[in-house]
């Protein structure tokens, strides 16, 4: 299925957000996620099904002022 990860097109063979994140190398990482502009808590990722064209945002800690 085709999804967008931080605006980049990706082909993933995963049904849930948790599985897709694992497949894309985010396993065990300190990240936060949103789909189509809505926050998805870490505990909700295994139960969050992906659909074609979903826009996934993955963010990590960064320096800030």
């Amino acid at each position, binding site marked *: 299925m085709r999804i967008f990860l931080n605006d980049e097109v990706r082909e993933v063979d995963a049904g849930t957000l948790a599985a897709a994140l694992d497949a894309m190398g985010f396993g065990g990482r300190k990240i936060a996620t949103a789909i189509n502009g809505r926050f998805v808590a870490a505990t909700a990722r295994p139960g969050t099904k992906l659909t074609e064209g979903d826009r996934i945002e993955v963010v990590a800690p960064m*320096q800030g*002022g």
Partner: protein
Amino acid sequence: MSFYGVELGSRLLLGTARYPSPAVLAEAIKASEAEVVTVSLRRESGSERAGQSFWSLVRALGVRVLPNTAGCHSVKEAVTTAHMARELFDTTWIKLEVIGESDTLQPDVFGLVEAARILSEDGFEVFPYTTEDLVVADRLVEAGCRVLMPWGAPIGSARGLNNVYGLKSLRAHFPDIPLVVDAGLGVPSHAAAAMEMGYDAVLLNTAVAEAGDPVAMARAFALAVEAGRTAFLAQPLEPRDMAAPSTPVIGKAALGD
């Protein structure tokens, strides 16, 4: 001084961006003696590790973090970012920024109040980056904010306290709300001036991070904040229009013709 019930020893809050290296950032935080540092969150790909190493560095310093919603221009963006930050940094504190104008990075105060209300009702402890406008400040307090962070000047501008009258008015109107001058400070005397006015703390980033020697500048700001606070407690003189001799004239020798 306390923010949302958390007692803090230092009245200097420091940003973590724009330092020449992670090592200099770490040394600057130590030199500043800041107990709270601001952090943010940005996109990361599966192959990157920058965010993870930055987080390890901050954790090793043992400081409390205040995540921001920097770069958000809408209520929806800011609220979603706050939710991501709460999970990522495991804190209910959020420095709420809703930017309304790109040249000055002036807060969109209408969006700010709306976002502050949504987040406060959802259990966040909001630190709103705002202007010195009294009516907006009132609305933010009504929305649930128990800290206010008016700008000194536009972010990164190093202009100091642009509206001293407005900042003094804000202090006078909100004697019991912790007030933090956030943004626009350039040199330690700006921080001292804010503290002399009775502000509870200052938050700055670029003035330290982009100084020629960030570690020394962090120390200089720490000293200025302490000096300004001590001066405020010592009740400074009000300016006068006319001279008042400091040396007593009684008993002065009569030496004239």
